[in-house]
């Protein structure tokens, strides 16, 4: 069948069943003179918005953002629940120009609305569903929603059992910690030996200090003795050298030697 025919047929069917289209009716009736329909439409649109948010939250990767969104969803749910209560009161009120069936249908509408609000996912059933699975069977997707509400369905056996991943991680952590401890032990032994050596050296040096001082005094004494001796020796030499006779003696000795060698040559 050609496409255009299909489109026309769809339009016809829609027009035929228009009266069952709640949204359209709502729009038609929402020019709404009574409080009920106004409140009803507003709650409806809110529910739609919350559902969309809930969908976003369930697909959200970032856990913190998911938690925030779920919290928002829960808050809106609570607010909507209060509004539903108000709506119920309005529904019971008798309004002008309203048939009895319509009145009953309003009550049903309110109840259905309340159910719809309850059904909105806010991350809680997610946790309950996963907790009821056996985690020991290796749940591949860990729970992304970190919650602290202690609802009963969470506290069954599977909840506190560790997964393979976490036990492996713990083993690796223990092994690394042991290796670190061994390394630190070796270092501490080395440091002990160093400390002992350093202290012994310190004591030995302390022992040597008075010996050095004694040596210093002795050496000082020896230097002063030497200085005295040197001064005296110098005086003697000066005495000897400055005498003219000494030079004359040497000259004459050379002359005599020269004469003797001449004679004997």
């Amino acid at each position, binding site marked *: 069948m050609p496409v255009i025919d299909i489109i026309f047929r769809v339009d016809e069917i829609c027009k035929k069943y228009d009266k069952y289209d709640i949204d359209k009716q709502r729009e038609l009736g929402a020019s709404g003179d009574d409080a009920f329909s106004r409140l009803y439409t507003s709650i409806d649109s809110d529910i739609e918005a919350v559902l969309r948010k809930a969908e976003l939250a369930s697909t959200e990767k970032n856990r913190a953002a998911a938690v925030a969104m779920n919290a928002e969803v829960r808050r809106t749910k609570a607010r909507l629940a209060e509004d539903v209560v108000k709506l119920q009161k309005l529904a019971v009120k008798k309004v002008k120009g309203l048939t009895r069936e319509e009145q009953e249908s309003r009550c049903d509408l309110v109840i259905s609305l309340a159910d719809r609000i309850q059904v909105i996912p806010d991350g809680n059933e997610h946790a309950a569903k996963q907790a009821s699975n056996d985690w020991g069977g290796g749940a591949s997707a860990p729970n992304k929603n970190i919650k602290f509400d202690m609802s009963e369905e969470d506290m069954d056996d599977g909840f506190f059992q560790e997964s393979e991943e976490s036990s492996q991680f713990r083993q690796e952590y223990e092994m690394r910690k042991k290796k670190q401890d061994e390394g630190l032990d070796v270092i501490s032994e080395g440091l*002990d030996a160093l400390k002992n050596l350093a202290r012994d050296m310190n004591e030995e040096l302390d*022992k040597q200090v008075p010996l050095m001082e004694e040596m210093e005094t002795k050496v000082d004494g020896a230097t002063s003795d030497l200085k005295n001796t040197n001064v005296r020796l110098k005086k003697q030499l000066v005495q000897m050298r400055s005498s003219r006779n000494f030079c004359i003696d040497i000259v004459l000795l050379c002359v005599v030697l020269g004469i003797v060698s001449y004679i004997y040559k």
Partner: protein
Amino acid sequence: MSSDPDKMMSKADKMTKLTLTRWSADWRGATELYEQAANGFRASNKYEKAKVALEKASKGQEMQASPWDAAKHMESAAALAQKLSIWNEVADFYRKASELYIECGRAQPASDALGKAARALEDVKPDDAIQLYTDACEILEEDGRDQMAFDLYRACANVYIKLEKFTDAATFFLRLGVAADKCDATNSQCKAYLSAIIVYLYAHDLKQAEKCYNDCSQIDAFMKSDQSRSASRLLTAYNEGDIEEIKKVASSSTVSNLDHSIIKLARKLPTGDVTAIQMNTNDDLDEDDLT
């Protein structure tokens, strides 16, 4: 002068003997001859004769009022006697040398001489060795040089340990502690106290060891040290009868820094039955139990 040492010896002897022709002995000449003779004998490995020559040379120097040279000759004579294994002469000669050094006013060489004597006699005559060590330590302490005495105390305590006289050994370690305290040598002091405690434990005298520990804890320097921690761990391990803990402390680095003989003792701990001590403490509890 003939180069024959024997002839020199006889000549020197003649010089020192007083006869009708000789009214005063010529010590200077004699000493020279004696020294030369001694060198000659040593070169020809006649140690007995060399020793005798050195003795006489020393006597000569003494007569010439040079105690230093006399002491030096005495020490050489003693070393030769050691080579010949004439032990009582060794002790005598070193003692004489030490006295001569003290005459010079030099305490350190005096105690060194006694120390050398003691070391020579350690294996052969340990009691004499101990006496020599003690005298050496006293000489140093009198002179106020306690630090030099540490090694002597340690050597003496080792001799006692070899003789298995453990209380005496521990006493010497405590004396070491006192000497160290005077010089503010805290490391040596703490090590000495720990050694004393280990010696007591080796002798299986737990009460004495605990008393020793309590006494030593009065001293601040010991209280703050690693050695006191090791000591307390050891004593608690003994009280609880925990053999593993004892072995662990004995092989720890603090104990391994002590003397070799102490390390050997520590490795052999615990001696005797440690569990017996535990039973006694349990009995005490029952007595105090009022029900």
